[in-house]
C-alpha cells in the first residue's frame, strides 16, 4: 500500500483537529505517515499528542531552523523526506503557512498542487468549491507527488485511537532555505473560545455592531461558538485581525455561521460560503447576505441577539 504524508499542525503544543481530518482524508489514499516538524527538544512531546486518527507512523524531525527560518526551512525538510520515502501524496491544512509550504514543496519536487480542497477521494481526486460557491470542480495531480491542501472542517474526522510507530530523522536544512530569518514570534491570543477555523459554530459581527461586540460574544458563548468579524470591524480596530473572516482573513466551514450586522460583500462571502447553515441578523432587508441565509432576521442585532442568547440558555437549563 502506498504511503501518504500529512503535515501535523499544533496549537499551544497540542495537535489540531484539522490534523485528524488530514489523516482521515489521507487514509483513503494510503497508509498515513504524520510528519512532525519540531523545535529542538519538543518532538517527543508534540508527537505524543497524536493520539487519534488513522495514523500508522510518525516521523519526527527536530531542528532549530524551523523556528528561525520560517516556511522555507519547513518546506525544505518536507521535500527531503519526500525524496527519501516517495509517498504518493502530501496533505497539509489550507492556511497561509500550509498553502505556502505546499507551493514550495511542489516546486522542489516538481509535483502538481491543488489548494483548498473540501474533499479527497481514494484515487487522489480533490473536490474544490470555486467562484464564490457557485461551482464544484474535481481535479487530480498528474505529475509527481499529489500535493493537496485541505480546508479545515470540511470532512468528518475519524477520531478512533491510534498507536503509531515513531521514527526520528535528523536533517540538514539547505542554505538556500535559510535566507530569511525570524527574529521574534508572537503567537495569536487564543482566549477561551474555540479556534475560528475549527469551530462547529461561528458568530460574526460587522460594521453593524458599531464597535460593541458584547452581544455577538454573548450569543457566541451561549452556543460555545467562535467569534468572527468582517473586515470593516477589524479595520476599525473593533476586533483583532486574526478573527477576520473572508478572502483576506480566514476561510471557515462551520455547521452554523451567524452573520450579525454584516452586509455580505463578495470578499466576506469568500470566507464563509461553504458553511453548512447560515443565519443572518441585519436591519436592512436588502442586504446581499440574505441571499445566503437559511434563516434571516430583519432586525436590530442589539435587540435580536440578547433574546436569542436568552432562548439558547433557557433551552440548556
Amino acid at each position, binding site marked *: 500500500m502506498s504511503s501518504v504524508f500529512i503535515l501535523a499542525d499544533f496549537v499551544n503544543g497540542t495537535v489540531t483537529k484539522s490534523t485528524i481530518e488530514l489523516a482521515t482524508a489521507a487514509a483513503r489514499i494510503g497508509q498515513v505517515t504524520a510528519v512532525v516538524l519540531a523545535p529542538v527538544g519538543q518532538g517527543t512531546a508534540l508527537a505524543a499528542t497524536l493520539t487519534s486518527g488513522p495514523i500508522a507512523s510518525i516521523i519526527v524531525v527536530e531542528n532549530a531552523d524551523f523556528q528561525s527560518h*520560517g*516556511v*522555507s526551512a519547513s518546506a525544505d525538510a518536507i521535500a527531503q523526506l519526500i525524496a527519501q520515502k516517495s509517498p504518493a501524496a502530501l496533505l497539509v491544512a489550507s492556511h*497561509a503557512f500550509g*498553502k*505556502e*509550504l*505546499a*507551493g*514550495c514543496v*511542489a*516546486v*522542489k519536487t516538481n509535483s*502538481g*498542487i491543488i489548494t483548498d480542497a473540501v474533499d479527497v477521494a481514494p484515487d487522489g481526486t480533490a473536490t474544490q468549491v470555486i467562484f464564490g*460557491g*457557485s*461551482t*464544484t*470542480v*474535481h481535479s*487530480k*495531480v*498528474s*505529475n509527481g507527488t499529489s500535493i493537496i491542501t485541505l480546508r479545515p472542517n470540511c470532512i468528518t474526522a475519524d477520531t478512533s485511537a491510534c498507536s503509531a510507530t515513531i521514527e526520528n530523522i535528523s536533517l540538514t536544512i539547505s542554505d538556500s532555505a535559510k*535566507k*530569511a530569518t525570524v*527574529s*521574534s*514570534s*508572537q*503567537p*495569536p491570543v487564543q482566549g477561551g473560545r474555540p479556534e475560528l477555523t475549527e469551530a462547529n*459554530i461561528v458568530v460574526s459581527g460587522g460594521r453593524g455592531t458599531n464597535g460593541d461586540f458584547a452581544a455577538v460574544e454573548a450569543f457566541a458563548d451561549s452556543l460555545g461558538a467562535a467569534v468572527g468579524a468582517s*473586515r470593516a470591524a477589524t479595520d476599525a480596530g473593533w476586533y483583532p485581525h486574526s478573527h477576520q473572516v473572508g*478572502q*483576506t482573513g*480566514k476561510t471557515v466551514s462551520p455547521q*452554523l455561521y451567524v452573520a450579525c450586522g454584516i452586509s455580505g460583500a463578495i*470578499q466576506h462571502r469568500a470566507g464563509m460560503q461553504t458553511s453548512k*447553515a*447560515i*443565519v443572518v*441578523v441585519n436591519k436592512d*432587508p436588502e442586504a446581499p447576505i*440574505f441571499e445566503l*441565509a*437559511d*434563516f*434571516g*432576521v*430583519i*432586525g436590530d442585532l442589539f*435587540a*435580536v441577539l*440578547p*433574546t*436569542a442568547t436568552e*432562548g*439558547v440558555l433557557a433551552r440548556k437549563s
Partner: protein
Amino acid sequence: MKIAVCIKQVPDSWAEKKMVNGALDRENVDAVLNDLDEYAVEEALRIAESHGGNDDGGPHSVTVISMGPARATDAVRKALSMGANGAILITDPALAGADALLTSKVLAQVISTESFDVVICGTESTDARMSVVPAMIATRLNWAQLTFAGSVVVEPAISKVSITRVSEAGVDAMSANFPVIVSVIEKINEPRYPSFKGIMAAKKKTIETRDLAKVGVSTESAWSQVLDSQLRPPRAAGIKVTDDGTGGAQLVGFLAERKLI
C-alpha cells in the same frame, strides 16, 4: 534599487464566472487589476518614495511584471498610472490556462534576467485564490521569501528588508538581504487612486511584451488537471422574518429544528 511588482489581471470579483473546457472563461467577463495587487504596487511606490523616489533617471525604479492575455495591458496601465516606471507583459497563446507552477516558472525566469533587488506580490489572486505564486517564485530563484507582510521596511544602504508577517500563526518579525520576494497583505496601506497626471503619463510609458520564446521557457505537460466541473445547485431560498420582538426566539426555534443546538 530596482523594485518589481507582480500583478495579475483577474475577472471582476462580482462577475459571474464560468468554466469552459476545464478552465476559467476569461473572455466573457470584465477584467480588472487583482485588487490585492494594488497594495503591492502602492507598497513598491512607497518604498521608492521613502528613499528619494522613482523619477526617471533617479536611483530607484518600479517595474510591473504581469503574465496574461494581451488585454491585461489594461491592468498594467492602471499600475503604471499609479506611478510605476515601466512594465513587462508576458503573453503567449500557450500560456492560456497556465497553473501556478507554470506561472511561477515564467515569472521567475523573467525576474532572473533583470537583476531586481526586491520583488513585491499580492498575497492572493482573487480568481485562483492559491496564495502560492510568491513562494514558488522564491523557491525557483533560491531567494529569501518574506510573505504575508503587514509592514515592510527597506534599508537600501545595507541591502536589507524587514517585515512583520501576519498569519494564523501570529505575528513574526522577519528579515533578509537582497534579493527578496515580498508579499503584502491588504492591511498594509491604502492604495492611491491614479491622478489625471498619472493617467496621462502612463500612456507614454512602455509596456514591453514578451512571448514564451523570448522569455526562454517551454510549456511542459500540466502538473494537474481538471477532471470535471459542475454548477452547484443555488442555495434554496431560506426563511426571512422581520423582528417584531420575537425574532430572537424564532431564530432559536430554527436552530433547534435543525438540531444545531
